[in-house]
């Protein structure tokens, strides 16, 4: 997935590194020459850096916002983050726009009026949400229960998933796991044995014990 991150502060660099390591194509924008020139050579090696003002449409155009899957506005200025979000959504129709809220007093503005799909205030959470949003066809752990004995995980079914077109009962999921919900086009489908899975379904699975690999094999392939 192509991810554009505006703001190469500690938050932006952290996200870039994490997402780069997960195999995403990451571009970092910052408007300070010394930040871009003094970028660490080791940790964010594969990340594309761009010197420019992300609040300018031309900058976003130059880094390929028209083809981006995600834009994350994580500068230290809430007003900049809002402008970047609005431009990304309005001028480039970016499917998923994330914005960092620096001052909680401003949080009420971070909504779809300003093109923001998801607003977050901590770097760690931000990375997790990007991962979840961009990851189709892999296994995302949402929550650990009972000290990790049980896990809630989510898989967005890719078009080539072996589970597509099959009834849940025919998937051969291990007994230690169960599908607890299927999210389809904004609706929650309560899963039954005869529920048939479709591409782009978000399947939420409760997994216990060591059967995660079996569940992954059944849903991801």
């Amino acid at each position: 997935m192509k991810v554009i991150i505006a703001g190469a502060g500690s938050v932006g660099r952290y996200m870039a590194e994490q997402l780069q390591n997960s195999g995403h194509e990451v571009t970092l924008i910052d408007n300070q020459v010394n930040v871009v020139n003094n970028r660490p050579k080791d940790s964010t090696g594969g990340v594309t850096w761009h010197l420019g003002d992300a609040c300018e449409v031309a900058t976003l155009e130059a880094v390929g916002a028209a083809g981006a899957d995600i834009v994350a506005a994580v500068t230290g200025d809430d007003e900049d983050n809002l402008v970047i979000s609005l431009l990304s959504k309005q001028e480039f129709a970016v499917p998923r726009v994330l914005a960092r809220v620096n001052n909680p007093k401003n949080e009420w503005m971070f909504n779809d009026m300003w093109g923001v799909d998801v607003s977050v205030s901590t770097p760690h959470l931000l990375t997790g949400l990007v991962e979840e949003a961009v990851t189709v066809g892999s296994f995302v752990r949402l929550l650990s229960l009972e000290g990790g004995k049980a896990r809630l995980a989510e898989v967005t079914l890719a078009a080539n998933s072996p589970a597509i077109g099959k009834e849940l009962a025919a998937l051969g999921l291990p007994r230690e796991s169960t599908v607890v919900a299927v999210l389809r086009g904004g609706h929650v489908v309560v899963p039954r044995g005869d529920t048939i899975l479709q591409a782009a379904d978000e399947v939420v699975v409760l997994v216990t014990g060591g059967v995660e690999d079996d569940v992954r094999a059944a849903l991801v392939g």
Partner: protein
Amino acid sequence: MVSVRRKNRVQVSEPHPEPVSVSIADMQARQFVCVCGKVTRMTARPTSGQPALAVMVSDDTGTVTAVWTGRRSIGGVTLGRRIAIKGVAVAHGAKLEFTNPSYTLLPR
């Protein structure tokens, strides 16, 4: 307080130099396009407590919605009026929607 920023601002070229003129049925998401049609429906669509105006525009091939945020009406945009819309549309399921596109009122 809004501080004065961007003092090194450079002259930038106009983004999206030329839109592609297409019929509504041929529009694609995330493409900079220009479509012409008649206003066939106007709806107030408040979003997150803020006013917004949703205008459905139709030509012979289909319909598309343009949403202008922060307002309840636009002078000159009335039912039956022909307008041209320039912008980038977002896909909402199977439907396409412009957000704050630029528009031109066309002669009746």
